[in-house]
C-alpha cells in the first residue's frame, strides 16, 4: 500500500529575500537612514530624476545604490554630484534582491560613514514586474511612470502600483505632444492604490519637483522623529 506523509511548511516562497531585506532595514534603522526603493520601467527617467533631486535636496545627505544589469553609465552620471554612489551589476537578473543590496550597503559602510547619511536611494533595475516582489530593505517605495508609457500601465502592472507609496508621473513636458490623459493615469492608479501620493513632474523643466522634494523631506523627517522617539522610550 502506498502510504503518504506530508509536512506543512507554511513558508513564504521569498522568505530568504525577506529575511535579508529585514536585516538591511535594521542596519538603516540603526544608522538613522531612510531607504527609498526607486522603481519604473526602463527609460521612465529614474536617473534624470535623481540628478535633479540631488541638486534640489542639498540639505539632505544622500547616497545612491545603483542597480544596473551590466553598465556603470547611470552610476557615472550620478557621481558628478559628489555623493557616494555604489554600483551593483545584477548580471542577468532583472531586479535587485536583498542580498545584492546588502553587498552595496557593505561597500557603502567601508568607504563612507553611514551614520552621517539621511537617505539612501536604491535605484532598481528598469522593470515594472519583478522588483515589485523583491523587497531590498526599503522604508518607502517610489514608482515612476512616464507620460509616454500610456494611461493603461497601472492596470497592466497592478502589483507595482499597488505597492508604491508615491507615484511620480514623469516627463510631463512631453504631454502636450501626446494623446495622453494625465487625470486618467491618476484615476487608474487610485483604483488600485487609493492612498498613494502622486506628483506630476518634469525633470527637464523642473515643473512639480518642489512638491516631490517636500514629500521626500517629510518622509525623512518623520522617520528620524520616529527613531528618536523610539530610542527615548526604549
Amino acid at each position: 500500500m502506498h502510504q503518504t506523509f506530508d509536512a506543512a511548511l507554511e513558508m513564504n516562497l521569498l522568505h530568504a529575500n525577506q529575511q535579508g531585506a529585514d536585516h538591511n532595514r535594521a542596519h538603516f534603522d540603526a544608522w538613522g537612514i531612510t531607504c527609498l526603493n526607486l522603481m519604473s520601467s526602463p527609460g521612465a527617467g529614474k536617473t534624470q530624476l535623481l540628478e535633479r533631486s540631488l541638486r534640489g535636496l542639498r540639505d539632505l545627505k544622500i547616497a545612491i545604490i545603483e542597480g544596473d544589469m551590466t553598465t556603470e553609465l547611470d552610476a557615472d552620471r550620478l557621481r558628478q554630484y559628489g555623493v557616494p554612489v555604489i554600483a551593483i551589476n545584477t548580471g542577468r537578473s532583472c531586479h535587485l534582491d536583498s542580498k545584492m543590496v546588502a553587498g552595496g550597503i557593505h561597500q557603502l559602510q567601508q568607504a563612507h560613514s553611514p551614520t552621517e547619511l539621511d537617505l539612501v536611494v536604491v535605484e532598481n533595475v528598469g522593470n515594472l514586474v519583478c522588483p515589485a516582489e523583491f523587497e531590498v530593505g526599503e522604508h518607502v517605495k517610489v514608482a515612476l511612470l512616464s507620460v509616454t508609457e500610456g494611461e493603461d500601465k497601472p492596470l497592466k502592472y497592478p502589483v507595482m502600483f499597488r505597492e508604491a507609496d508615491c507615484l511620480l508621473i514623469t516627463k510631463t513636458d512631453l504631454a502636450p505632444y501626446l494623446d495622453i490623459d494625465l487625470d486618467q493615469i491618476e484615476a487608474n492608479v487610485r483604483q488600485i492604490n487609493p492612498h498613494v501620493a502622486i506628483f506630476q513632474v518634469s525633470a527637464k523643466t523642473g515643473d512639480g519637483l518642489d512638491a516631490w522634494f517636500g514629500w521626500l523631506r517629510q518622509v525623512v523627517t518623520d522617520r528620524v522623529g520616529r527613531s528618536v522617539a523610539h530610542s527615548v522610550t526604549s
Partner: protein
Amino acid sequence: MHETDMTKALIGTIRDWWDSQPEQPTIEKVHLVVGRFTCVEPASLQFAFDVQTQGTFLDGAQLVIQDIPLVAHCHTCQADYLPEVGRQYSCPTCNSPMEDIRSGRELKIDRLEWAAV
C-alpha cells in the same frame, strides 16, 4: 524570468528541510499556493522547477500549484468582490477603489508529500 530565482529559493528551502530530517524521504509532491495578484506566472514556475530539479534530490517530484483568486473587500458595500485583473479593480457596485485585499497576494510553500519508505 524571476521565476528562475524563485525556484532556486524554493529548492533551497526544501533542501534545508530535507537535510534536517532524520531519514531523507523521497519527496513526491511540493504544494505551492500562488495568488493571482503577484508577479508570478505558474507555468514559468512549473517549467523552472522541472528543469532545475533534474538530477537533484527532487528529481521526479511534482510541483502542485494552487491558484488563489484576487478577492477585494469594499468598505462602502461591506462586501467582497472579485476585481478583473488588468481591467477593473474598483468595486463593481459603487466604484470605490480597491482598499483591502482579502486574498491574491499569497506566495507560499504550503506542504510537502512523500511516500512511506
